[in-house]
């Protein structure tokens, strides 16, 4: 690698100015797009294929989930503020915002757990109807992604508290952010398709 480009990224890259780690994260996210597309396409095919479907606004707690959507959006804001903090070399700010992001993610999963238990209590489960099967599959896979993100965030918080990320070297924060925002984007689409349409 030439010295002219060495300062741009911490990690070696085969194309000047293009980080291999970031490129790989984007490739992973592209594969994740196809993963969720398969599930969403299945949902569309079943729901609009004439299956017996409940009135969504009566079946699901839309105001609660709208609040949960807002919580996940706020967690994206705290994530991006964590990135902005370390871009300015502010390690304390980084840790603070990362903890807030992990907490909001955990809150999202908890509220989803409450929603699930309410539905199960009414007798709606993945086994009772096509609606239940698709609903629990889609929200379940997304919730698993959020949960995995929270675990990853906790690891990043731990590393941040030990001073792992600095003004000069903080690509891990950017990659963590890419995954977290991606999970937020998936929920933006899922919220509309599952709850509003």
């Amino acid at each position, binding site marked *: 690698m030439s010295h002219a480009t060495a300062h*741009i*990224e911490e990690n070696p890259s085969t*194309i000047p*100015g*293009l*980080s291999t780690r*970031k*490129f790989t994260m*984007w*490739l992973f*996210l*592209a594969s994740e*797009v*196809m993963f969720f*597309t398969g599930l*969403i*396409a299945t949902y*569309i*095919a079943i729901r*609009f*294929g004439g299956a017996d479907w409940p009135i969504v*606004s009566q079946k699901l707690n*839309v*105001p609660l989930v*709208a609040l949960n*959507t*807002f919580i996940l*959006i*706020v967690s*994206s*804001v705290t*994530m*991006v*503020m964590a*990135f*902005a903090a370390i*871009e300015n070399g502010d390690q304390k700010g980084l840790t603070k915002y990362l903890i807030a992001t992990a907490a909001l993610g955990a809150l999202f999963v908890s509220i989803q757990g409450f929603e699930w238990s309410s539905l199960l209590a009414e007798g709606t489960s993945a086994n009772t109807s096509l609606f239940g099967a698709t609903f629990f599959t889609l929200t379940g896979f997304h919730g698993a992604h959020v949960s995995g993100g929270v675990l990853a965030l906790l690891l990043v918080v731990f590393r941040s508290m030990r001073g792992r990320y600095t003004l000069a070297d903080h690509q891990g924060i*950017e990659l963590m*952010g*890419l995954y977290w*925002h*991606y999970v*937020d*984007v998936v929920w*933006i*689409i899922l*919220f*509309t398709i599952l*709850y*509003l*349409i």
Partner: protein
Amino acid sequence: MEVAPTQAHASRSTYLKVFAFLAVLTAVEVSVAFLIGTAWLRIAFLAVLAIAKAGLVVAFYMHLRFERIPFRIIALGPLILVVLLASALLLERNLPR
């Protein structure tokens, strides 16, 4: 124009402005879902709002607006397939059986 191609990111104030848009769009979404009775009109509105929100997050929070072309192609390429798949499925539903 930004000078450093890979390090140019938005500022905090831009992040917060984007957040304000996301919050307002979410409120509009929920209102639209309950207020617009005509199904196709409601779905069209909701689709546009969801795509706008997703676009804001990807462009600003994931910094795609500030990335080089290869990143943009990788990130946006699969979306063309998504649109094709969704359109095919919806059209197929309207065909006579």
